């Protein structure tokens, strides 16, 4: 039974990172109705930037700051240069374009930094805490991850629901035409949504890197994890993404604990398939009437 709780607790830290990536997916979906499959590519690229800055300056915090800036810029660039023009065409075009961005980013990163994994250590101890003579599967680093995730979610929630910018962003996403008539700069709001998603993705990348080594494609699997979490949460809901992100992390931790880590992608595939069979629009998503 102790083992069960150890696995359960151990999954929360990894789940928080999955939740962050899922939030990034939800943000782009909410602002432009595009699931940005390039999100992990952007996160990977910004994490490499963070690594370079950290190694040059010796400061993990400076590295993180550089990643945040790079994430915002990259999000803006991808949205403005590629997805804004594509959006006027069909949805499959946008999906294919995001995969084009993903392939390009991974190839570019491999050309610049090489394909072999690079170590990117955590800023603080990543060892299990010892309390009451038991080594708990939670480290200070996990606590940092959980705290950052919680802060980001609360901050985003406040931004979207309590500020005029958030209102304008939601209006632009909900009905661009009416928002434009009401004086909202819709284009800017969509760009802002992507920039914020880029920042969240950058945070996720920097936080994942210590637990998974940093290579051009080492985040690929997290795209599937995060997508599963986002879909389970309905793709529209920040709370849903966090809940199911952490849930996915816990399930993976349990699977890994009782079986081994090679079962994890299989279990996630089953999870994704079952949820899509039961509710093709996501468990928390509002079912929309479909023509056929």
């Amino acid at each position, binding site marked *: 039974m102790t083992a069960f709780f150890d696995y359960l607790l151990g999954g929360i830290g990894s789940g928080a990172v999955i939740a962050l990536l899922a939030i990034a997916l939800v943000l782009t979906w909410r602002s432009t109705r595009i699931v940005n499959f390039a999100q992990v590519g952007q996160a990977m690229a910004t994490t490499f930037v963070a690594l370079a800055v950290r190694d040059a300056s010796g400061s993990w915090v400076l590295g993180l700051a550089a990643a945040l800036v790079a994430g915002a810029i990259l999000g803006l660039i991808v949205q403005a240069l590629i997805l804004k023009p594509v959006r006027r065409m069909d949805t499959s075009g946008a999906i*294919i374009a995001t995969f*084009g961005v993903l392939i390009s980013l991974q*190839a570019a990163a491999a050309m610049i930094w090489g*394909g072999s994994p*690079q170590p990117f*250590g955590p800023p603080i101890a990543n060892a299990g805490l010892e309390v009451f003579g038991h080594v708990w599967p939670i480290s200070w680093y996990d606590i940092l991850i959980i705290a950052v995730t919680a802060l980001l979610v609360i901050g985003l929630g406040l931004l979207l629901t309590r500020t005029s910018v958030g209102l304008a962003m939601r209006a632009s996403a909900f009905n661009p035409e009416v928002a434009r008539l009401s004086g909202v700069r819709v284009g800017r709001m969509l760009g802002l949504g992507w920039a914020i998603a880029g920042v969240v993705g950058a945070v996720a990348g920097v936080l994942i890197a210590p637990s998974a*080594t940093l290579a051009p494609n080492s985040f690929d699997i997290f795209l599937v994890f995060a997508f*599963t979490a986002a879909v389970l949460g309905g793709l529209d809901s920040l709370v849903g993404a966090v809940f199911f992100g952490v849930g996915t992390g816990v399930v993976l931790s349990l699977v*890994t604990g009782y079986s081994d880590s090679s079962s994890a992608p299989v279990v996630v595939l089953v999870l994704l398939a079952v949820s*899509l069979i039961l509710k093709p629009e996501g468990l928390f998503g509002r079912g929309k009437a479909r023509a056929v």
Partner: protein
Amino acid sequence: MTGMWLRVRSSRLLLHVPAFFVLWLLLSRINTVIDPYYSHVMAMVAMYAIAMLGMAILVGLSGQVSLGNGALMAVGGYTFALTSMHWTTVPLLGLPWNAVWSVICAGLCGVLVGFAIGLIAARLRGPYLAGFTLGLAVGIPAIANRFAFLGGSNGFMLTVPYPDGGYSDSASSDIATTDNSVLDQFLSPSVAPSDVPASDAAASDVPASDAASSDMLTMDDVTGSGSASTTSPTPSASDVPSASPSNVPSATDLIPTTPSGTVTDPGFIIEQWQASMAIAIACIAGFVALNLVRGRQGRRWRAVRDDPIAAALSGISPAMSKVSAFTVSSLFAALAGAVFAQLLTYVGPSAYGVGLSLALLVGVILGGRASLLGGVIGAVIIVGLPSLVGNVADGRGWPAQVTDNAPNLIYGLLLVLVVLVAPGGLVGTARDLAVRVRRAVM
């Protein structure tokens, strides 16, 4: 040209038979006279072309963007490998087993799996479908990685053909282990000793070669162009110029599986044998695909893609149309996977990774998703570009990591560019131009 075909529609099937027969004879003849290296290239193009036909039907005609066809190729490849390793006679018939039976099994398995997945996929739209099929691309190779009877992360090395055209397992080697360390690191509870940062520990137990081979987007592994031969599990064409006759005691028995009887030659060349099989299957697949696309089923697919409501009102079931497209696409993917397995003489999770699925998507979009010809052109692009880049890079002192990844960068940028500028791909754009020119002239 299409006009001529349409006018003789009643005899279309009859016309396609000799056309593909002549194509097959021609390609088989070319295969016997060229250098084994080019036979290997031909086989790779044929293999990709088979898969691309399925992609053109699924993405182009049925309008379902799939990233999972690489995983469906794995279904075919593993069926091919397992049946040829474990079965010596055909059940019920009692005939001796050979590669043809393995290919048939691979196709059947592809149909079954494709139908089951298609039932789920038909309900999904846009990003849900893309995400689900991406999950397949990651999850299905992971199934093979997980279970020992599927070879685990090592996969199976298949030896050169038996006299009866089958393959044997040459004992799982540890050449190509898929790198699980990322997941191990991520998922294991963090109870590492405090003085060793977890990441450093991870880096030390990942040899550089493994890391490179796990690079899912390194299409060199997939195209087998040999530039990554140190990391690739696959004996590339240049490594195996010809199998020594001692490996193939009586190559004459191979005749049933090979078209032009070249193997009666004692100088049996494995690339030629592989290419002949790939070409034969590609010609059959092309014939089937063309008749499906030009026939009633193709019209149904297009009708559902363009306007599902109107199609439903005309008595076409959109759901069944989508499921049938997925099933047919999966059949072609599985056949391509079987050909891939015998080209690499290897099956393993790393061979059928996400990179393969992405390569298929790139090929079909660049070539032109709405036509079978576009798929075939896409196959040529996917196989040709890495060696083209290699030629350009030669003698310019580019570092290996630039040369190896430049094709992927070009694929990615071209993919974005095509979506932005020419959604029809090469073939679609050429057709648009032709129409415009014709209008201008008339």
